[in-house]
């Protein structure tokens, strides 16, 4: 009873926080009534979501739920049908320099003529300008970012020779080079090896500890509670958002996935929550 009471007080406190954050104009990402449609079928419909600063947030939902679409719309790279997106209280176009994006690694052709360091340098072009040539300072920074993801030895490797996990690390290093305050990642842990998964999560946690905000499309329900502070559950519409402990519940998962998740399966996922 005591525990339950404490729990509900905590929820009130968190909701209070969230309400306060909504008023604050500096919320890293604020989405209101966002609808995106490919053709005449909405990929996401009227989604409201607020993402608080200095947290790691998972966007979770079944295939075709619009997870990738949501972050692409937040980045302004798919057209919005309706709704608004505010990043640090401003329209996307004015704060591009504060956002970094890690696309799905399968979205590019890895036989492109580039070395690992060249790809990381792409994260610097916005600040460097599209004309000036990169000097030793930029190269140093690119190498430092590669070092952070454990790929410094691969700087001169052709990108076509990398494994899937290494490709993902290179993409993360490119985002690190952007030195952003808001990181949006599309399935960064999909199909990577265990060592890469640990490295990526370490980097994301360190970003969070530096006060940056990290939003990941995430597919692995069993690691949501372990890796993330908050979760946004969507299936075309928003199902729930908030701290993992109070949001990642059986009921919400059932609503998100419909009959596709067996009750016993959900039981297993709930274990590590404190």
């Amino acid at each position: 009873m005591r525990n339950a009471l404490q729990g509900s007080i905590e929820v009130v406190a968190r909701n209070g926080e969230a309400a306060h954050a909504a008023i604050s104009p500096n919320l890293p990402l604020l989405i209101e009534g966002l609808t995106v449609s490919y053709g005449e079928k909405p990929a996401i419909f009227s989604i409201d979501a607020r993402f608080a600063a200095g947290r790691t947030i998972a966007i979770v939902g079944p295939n075709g739920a619009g997870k990738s679409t949501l972050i692409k719309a937040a980045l302004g790279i798919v057209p919005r049908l309706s709704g608004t997106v505010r990043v640090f209280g401003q329209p996307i176009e004015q704060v591009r320099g504060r956002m970094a994006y890690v696309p799905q690694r399968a979205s590019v052709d890895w036989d492109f003529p580039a070395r690992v360091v060249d790809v990381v340098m792409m994260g610097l072009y916005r600040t460097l300008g599209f004309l000036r040539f990169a000097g030793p300072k930029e190269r140093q920074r690119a190498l430092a970012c590669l070092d952070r993801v454990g790929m410094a030895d691969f700087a001169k490797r052709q990108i076509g020779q990398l494994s899937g996990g290494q490709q993902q690390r290179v993409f993360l290093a490119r985002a690190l080079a952007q030195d952003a305050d808001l990181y949006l990642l599309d399935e960064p842990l999909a199909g990577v090896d265990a060592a890469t998964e640990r490295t990526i999560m370490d980097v994301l946690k360190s970003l969070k500890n530096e006060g940056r905000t990290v939003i990941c499309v995430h597919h692995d329900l069993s690691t949501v509670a372990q890796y993330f502070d908050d979760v946004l559950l969507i299936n075309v519409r928003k199902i729930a958002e908030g701290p993992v402990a109070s949001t990642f519940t059986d009921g919400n998962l059932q609503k998100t996935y419909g009959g596709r998740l067996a009750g016993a399966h959900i039981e297993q996922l709930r274990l590590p929550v404190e």
Partner: protein
Amino acid sequence: MEGFLNALLLQSGYNAALVGIGAALLGMAAGGTGTFIFLRKRSLVSDAAAHATLPGICLAFMAMVAFGGDGRNLTGLMVGSAGSAAVALVLVDWISRETRLPEDAAIGAVLSVFFGFGIVLMTVIQTMTSGRQAGLESFLLGSTAGMLFNEAVTIAIAGAVAGFLLLLLHRRMTLVAFDPEFAATTGIDVRATDLATMGLVLVVTVIGLKVVGLVLIVAMLIIPAVAARFWTERVDRLVAIAAVIGGVSGYTGAAASAAYPNVPTGAVIVLISFGLFAVSLSFAPVRGVVASVYRHVRFQRQVHLRQGLLAVARGEPIFDGLTLKILRFAGHIRADGVATLSGRAAAAKALRDEARWEVARETHQEDVSGARYDGLTAIETVFTPDEIAEFDRRIGDRIGVVA
């Protein structure tokens, strides 16, 4: 042959020198530009643009004649060709965005319709102004024989403009070609960049009309880029190499055409650049065919050698002919199949390295070096002597002597 050499050395007279320099500039601009449409995987769009110049040429000719001017004015024809090619590009873009048709179908439809319309117009012109047929056919396959000074200057200026635009846009175009979505998040307007790239293609196409002709201009855009791709893994160098290949092809092609005036310039340029492509395909150090065959054979030998040595060490019989041949060639076995002294030593070493790797994979599960085992990589190249000594200590003396 002497005529060809003279032309190469700019000794064939003023006109030939002019044409040679013009063709070289064109080749460089085409090679550099073509690199980006090749990387963006839109090679065929440039073919649509090239074929779509024909109705523009004809309409410009008719308009200039109608206004009492000289129908053959190159600048006027270039403006006309650029106009109709631009319309075609907009159409391809519109069809592939707004309808459910894929881009290749849009290209096929637009290319053939524009070209067909151009042929009809050309026939009309031939009946209409029988006295001054103007040789518009020369724009189909190119002809440099009668190039005027101001025509060469026009080509040179347009080539310089293309080079400047390339410099201005190369980083944006690289980003868009590799990862358009990421490019968009850094504030690059992807559509505008694609349009600018197509604008560059237009410039090259229009200046290439006179030299190689509209049917073959696509070859000047694409062949240098794909040939250059064999030599490098970096975009900057790719552009430079493609420009050199294009320039050399243009220059030598024009020289050949000056020496043998009956051979169409465009076709010769394309054949020369194809020759450079064939050389690249065969002999480029990493991606070339010879290099990859060599690598494959060497790899196969390594595998057979290793398997053979392990079989010797374990006392297993070897039946594979290639394995026996390789072992014999390396002096590890005698002709009768019995292991020599060096063979036994190498076999024991192979066996011990296997055991070392087994320990290494257990103790280094977490880091990259443990994952380097592939049965072939020499353990000394991955671990330090100290680490190997540690593996040996763990193995103990279960396995025989190391040579």
